[in-house]
């Protein structure tokens, strides 16, 4: 009977209903919540003897992967995989999957939650009332305003679609657009510069790293309207935070909603005292519903891999032909 280790804390236990695929296939499940604080030595000890793991953010270094010679599949619960040495896993024939696609809708919802909280100054208003105040600062419309979406991947498309009932003008910057989608939902494809100049709300849905590092630098921020708002639920590295802070303090930008930061959690106090900023702690993709979906997808991917079917969310298909055998 193959054994799977579950380190993801939000899985409720070995009897979590979303692990049904594993139970039905006869897997023995062990639940030991872990995370980023665990060191590689501890992790190796924990993971040894298991064929697969539904992994949280603990470090799957080369040493761990080499040492854990029973391990055939690391199924990351979530979409990030910074903590997994994927090239090492590929070399060793260990499959690495993520639950990509199982939380898109949560991120798209959250982008809108941030847009509205900025437009209507919700955090500020709520704080005011709770301290006995009743001054009534006016907000801004969202209805029929212009929404600029940087990146029309699955999440960006979800955001675009949500704008339809609000009768918004939707602009998007995307190098490889799905033109049928754009036509269906009335999305106008434009250059990044054009998008920044015309939008009332700009939301980022581009990948981080590489040439997108500091995509929103001082020059690009300066293109935005002074009444516009910037939302980031994608990656913290997309924004030059020092430049953003300067624009917000200088009144060159109306506000910002940030779910992701250059450093997480942040060690400095940047943005903390600004009333026109809404900060959430990299939560966009995590809801009750997406959590359940991610657990189910991770469980299913392990069962698929063990049956010799290429699993969903596979990051290293090049490992497939020399994968460790069950």
């Amino acid at each position: 009977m193959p054994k799977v280790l579950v380190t993801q804390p939000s899985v409720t236990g070995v009897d979590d209903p979303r692990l049904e695929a594993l139970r039905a296939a006869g897997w023995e499940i062990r639940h030991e919540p872990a995370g980023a604080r665990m060191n590689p030595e501890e992790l190796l000890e924990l993971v040894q003897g298991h064929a697969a793991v539904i992994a949280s953010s603990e470090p799957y270094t080369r040493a761990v992967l080499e040492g854990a010679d029973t391990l055939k599949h690391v199924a990351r619960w979530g979409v990030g995989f910074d903590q997994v040495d994927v090239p090492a896993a590929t070399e060793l024939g260990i499959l690495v999957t993520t639950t990509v696609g199982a939380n898109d809708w949560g991120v798209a919802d959250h982008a809108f939650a941030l847009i509205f909280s900025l437009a209507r100054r919700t955090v500020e208003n709520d704080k005011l009332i709770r301290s006995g105040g009743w001054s009534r600062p006016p907000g801004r419309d969202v209805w029929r305003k212009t929404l600029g979406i940087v990146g029309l991947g699955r999440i960006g498309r979800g955001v675009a679609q949500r704008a339809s009932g609000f009768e918004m003008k939707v602009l998007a910057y995307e190098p490889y657009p799905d033109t049928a989608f754009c036509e269906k939902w009335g999305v106008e494809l434009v250059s990044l510069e054009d998008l920044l100049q015309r939008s009332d709300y700009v939301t980022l849905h581009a990948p981080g790293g590489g040439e997108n590092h500091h995509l929103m630098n001082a020059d690009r921020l300066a293109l935005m309207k002074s009444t516009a708002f910037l939302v980031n639920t994608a990656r913290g590295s997309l924004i030059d935070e020092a430049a953003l802070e300067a624009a917000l303090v200088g009144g060159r930008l109306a506000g910002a909603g940030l779910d992701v930061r250059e450093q997480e959690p942040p060690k400095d106090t940047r943005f903390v005292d600004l009333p026109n900023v809404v900060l959430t702690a990299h939560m966009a993709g995590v809801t009750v519903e997406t959590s359940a979906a991610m657990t189910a997808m991770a469980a299913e991917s392990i069962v698929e891999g063990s049956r010799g079917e290429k699993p969903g969310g596979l990051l290293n298909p090049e490992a497939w032909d020399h994968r460790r055998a069950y």
Partner: protein
Amino acid sequence: MPKVLVTATGHRGDDDPRFKPLRDAGWDVKTHRWPGGRPDEEEVVELIHGYDAVIASSNERYTRSVFERADTIKHVARWGVGYETVDVPAASDNGVVVTTTQGSNHWAVADHAWTLMLGVSRRLIELDKIGRSRTWTRPIARDVWQKTLGVVGLGRIGKGVAQRAFGFEMKVVAYEPYPDLEHCKKWNIELVDSIDEVFRQGDFVTLHAPGDNVHVANAERIALMKPTAVLINTARGTLVDEDALYEALTSGKIAGAGLDVREHEPPEDERDDRFAALTNVILTPHISGSTAEAQAVSAVMVVEQIMASASGTMPHGIHNPEIWDRRRR
């Protein structure tokens, strides 16, 4: 020279450029700001007597005695859509025209219902507090995507709220005695037979009924809601039995609430303040209709109304057209 006083809180002083058309037409425009709290009758009469018209806030009450004593007033123009503070029958008896800027902010109210829905489901107030700290815990939120939206009342605002659900792929159920069937068909809104059914089915229940539906959200109806459901009120404070809501929120019978309107505005006593201690509510100070864009529209509207009635044209947004022929001149 006719004189108009502006007490509405949206003004920017005597030189407010939005009142230029009035000044150009020969009106003397004065503005006033109340220091806070509700002025008494005496103060109101003293302030407005001698003016021909008032562009009125919701702070001061226009009672029968005010209309009788301030006998120079010909037109009370509320800069806003509510007129709970105006005794309209008394105004009519005294020949005073009453208008509101109805239709000037329905889209903003519909937006705000969504602000509260998304804010409560994504626990934004709690999350922002955590986000401003250096210890990131992650309280878990709930989806809006593909959930069920329950709408009580499909007037202009309720229709707008329902239509906004389209891109979120929500199921929309609504109760409305006089529905616009074309709109329902276009936006895939399912009409149900009773208000109870809206409370039963909705993951979000949002109220868009007139304020005389006192306690439409009472203990019995709230008890029908799912434990994961959220109640939103951007309409009138009278619609919600706050005792019943407070009980449901603190005992976990429902998941949360977003309240822009209250039984007492601003809150007056400890009973009103109870909600401020709850983490599963978002409270905003009756600002659902108040955006810069809506204020710009209503400023134009209120100025047009004053000028129209002074020049003998019945203004849009009049609440007592039956007195037009016997209005004060």
